[in-house]
């Protein structure tokens, strides 16, 4: 069930040179991935992806359907482990720690790397219980009061508090789609992660709800490192500082968002952003 892990060389001893990321030196690098291959059975979904993700930035992963961007995202919190035929090679390090190390506890990793899914998936429980679940299983709070304030803080962080403060004990599934997605973000925040992964978080939402989530991402960037997979190039431009373009399982181009959209260096990137492929 667990992915096979190959660790060819200790990551710390090799100097890492990410492709097409000129400003790495000025920023803290949060996630370092080298030569990540992902296989679903015999099918290769990702081919030698090497990517550095900076702290306190929004990194957007774009590309046509089936290009491997979601697969890459799910490698970052080892969500691919749940797929028994999935195999991950290469190294991914978060703050210098290899997350595919057999000694690493995947539960702890997922507490540090929160995730927001494509479709809002609140637990069919109350709003309060949705938020409180993570802190409770990790034992983050000592008593009910602390938990209450953590729930409130998380909802506030996600910009949902004012809308739901009178009905936190009502089912989370009763909220609108956009509210549900913000609830899921609040749920991710509540476990106090460093990194938040978002897998097309706005694909099921209307433009107004999308705008709210995008605004939220701007605010969250101060405290969290955010990686977002999106199909909308406009959204990538609006929310991200850096953008990676994937195509057919390959990382084609990675760089500042402005540069990628204004002045792509790879013809495939240009074709994609101008709508010729994809």
């Amino acid at each position, binding site marked *: 069930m667990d992915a096979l892990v190959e660790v060819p060389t200790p990551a710390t001893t090799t100097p890492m040179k990410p492709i097409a990321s000129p400003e790495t030196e000025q920023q803290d690098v949060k996630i370092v991935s080298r030569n990540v291959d992902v296989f679903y059975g015999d099918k290769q979904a990702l081919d030698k992806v090497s990517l550095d993700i900076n702290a306190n930035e929004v990194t957007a992963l774009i590309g046509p359907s089936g290009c491997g961007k979601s697969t890459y995202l799910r490698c970052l919190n080892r969500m691919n482990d*749940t797929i028994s035929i999935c195999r991950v090679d290469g190294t991914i390090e978060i703050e210098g720690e290899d997350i595919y190390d057999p000694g690493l506890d995947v539960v702890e990793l*997922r507490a540090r790397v929160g*995730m*927001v899914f494509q479709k809002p998936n609140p*637990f*069919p429980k109350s709003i309060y219980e949705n938020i409180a679940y993570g802190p409770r299983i990790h034992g983050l709070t000592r008593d009910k009061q602390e938990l209450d304030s953590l729930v409130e803080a998380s909802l506030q962080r996600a910009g949902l508090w004012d809308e739901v403060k009178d009905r936190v004990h009502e089912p989370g599934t009763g909220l609108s789609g956009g509210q549900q997605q913000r609830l899921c973000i609040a749920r991710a925040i509540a*476990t106090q992660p460093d990194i938040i992964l978002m897998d097309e978080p706005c694909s099921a939402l209307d433009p107004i709800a999308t705008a709210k989530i995008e605004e939220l991402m701007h605010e969250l960037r101060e405290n969290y490192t955010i990686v977002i997979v999106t199909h909308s190039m406009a959204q990538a431009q609006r929310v991200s500082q850096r953008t990676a373009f994937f195509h057919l399982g390959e990382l084609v181009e990675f760089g500042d968002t402005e540069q990628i959209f204004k002045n792509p260096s790879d013809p495939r990137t240009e074709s994609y952003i101008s709508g010729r492929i994809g």
Partner: protein
Amino acid sequence: MNMHQSPEMTPENASGRTSVHKTDDAKRRLKKRYAFETRFKFFGIFAIALAATALFWLLSTVVGKSLGAFHETYITLPVELAAEKIDAKGNRDPKDIRAGNFSGAIKASLRQAFPYITKRRDKLKLYKMVSNGAELSLRERVMRDPSIIGTTQTVRLLASDDVDLYMKGYEGSLEARDVSGVATPLGTTGKVRIIVESNSFSSILARVKDELRDKAQRFRDQARREARGIRVFQRRIDTLPSDADPALRTDYEGRITAYENRRQSLIESAQALEKKANTPGGTEQVSSALPSFFLAINGGVVKITRVSPDAVEGQTLVPLSSDAPAADGSWQLLVNPQSEAGRRIRDAQTTWVEELRKAGAIDTTFNTRFFTAADSREAETAGIWSSAAGSFWTMLVTFFLSFPIGVAAAIYLEQFAPKNRITDFIEVNINNLAAVPSIVFGLLGLAVVIEFLGNDVFGRDLRSTALAGGIVLALMSLPTIIIASRAAIKAVPPSIKEAALGVGASNVQAVFHHVLPLAMPGILTGTIIAMAQALGETAPLLMIGMVAFITEVPGSPMDNASVLPVQIFRWSDFPERAFEMRTAAAILLLLGFLVIMNAIAVLLRKRFERRW
């Protein structure tokens, strides 16, 4: 669909060609399609109507047959609880009272109620009108309150099933027939002859003569069969080769003679009967295959045994008050259209029941005993409580074994097990087990539970206990529960589990905190359906001895027990009509339980059904 007829669609398209959908061929094809649809709908409605009719027929038959079981008959009589009979030692020791002669007390009170019944055979018939259950309940009553010993109490005595059935009209009832003229009885007791001035009895005589003719016809049919035997042997003699053993010929001839003799005597008998039947008047015997005829005259009742147009002979069942001639209209001819040979209650008993009815000493009330009593060999005292309790204990064992094991297996297979050949093999086998005939599980239970665990579990023999039955039914229910639970778990959207994993829940936490609660309604539905199936299961329980005759209500799973469907099976084997009714009533009850269980399953599904 009506696009083809819509006015916007012109028969010709832009290029001027006729559309392929507008040709006559196309119209024919369309018509054919509609015809098929109509046919299909008709077949569907027909199938549903057939099923509904079958269901209605089944239910109405069961309900109709069971109706008689819900009432019971009591004979109310004063019973003298003589101290010397019930408590000879006089110290009111419960042990002595238990051994008291209650049946003697009841018999004495019956004799007192019918002082004119003196013949031993008649007395036996009289005693049989009261059930053994009456003795038991009288004993219980006296045990509860020994102070009534020595007094005379009015006691409601449970009637036997024959009397009960007669009271409910299942064994025919007395109908009055038109008679006229003055009737003169010759005598008041024993065999009496009653002469009337009219030919009031000619209709009875006609019935009797019809019967004689029928009998003669049967003799003639038999005679024809004998004649066929003669022909067969005659042919054999004719075809015997000339060198055949002469002994053979002698043997054949002897047989022919025997056939001929029988034929002759049958024909003679038939002729004699026909002669009797065709001679007007005369006196004839009333056979027990005919309806029973009674004469109620001068306060007595006479069972008619011989009849002529203007006189009858018979046995007095209730003595006449006098042999004075009875005026026209003061006497009655009563008929029970059901012949005595075709029913269990005797003519004398029906007469006495009518006497009791006249005295207001017999009545029919709602039968609570059926719901509270244990099984019995007497239909009137048999109840379903022991088997209902047995079913309860068995289901309890089944549930507590199959539910945890089944759900655990389902969770493991669905959420934790690696997908490989071994798990595939297990899955296929679980699915196949669900289709294994239940009797096979019974065999397994016999081999494993009874033979292997042996006859010493907590010092008890496991045979025919609810525990053994529960284990066998649990084995049988497991595949159903596992399959239903797996389906329910699979139906929980993976996004919920992903959400839990996403906030750092471990696999076990994600399953037990989120997946399992959401799958629970489906799991419970499957479990209830499996339980309902187990509740109605008979075959495997027969194998492990749960077909036993249980007269005590089981108090624990370790007691010998029977279950409802086995009880039904056992009762259905008894020839008594009263048991037939109780069988139907028990079926109704079992169906009721099943409907309730399925209703709970439906409610659970409706109540907790979630849509994502």
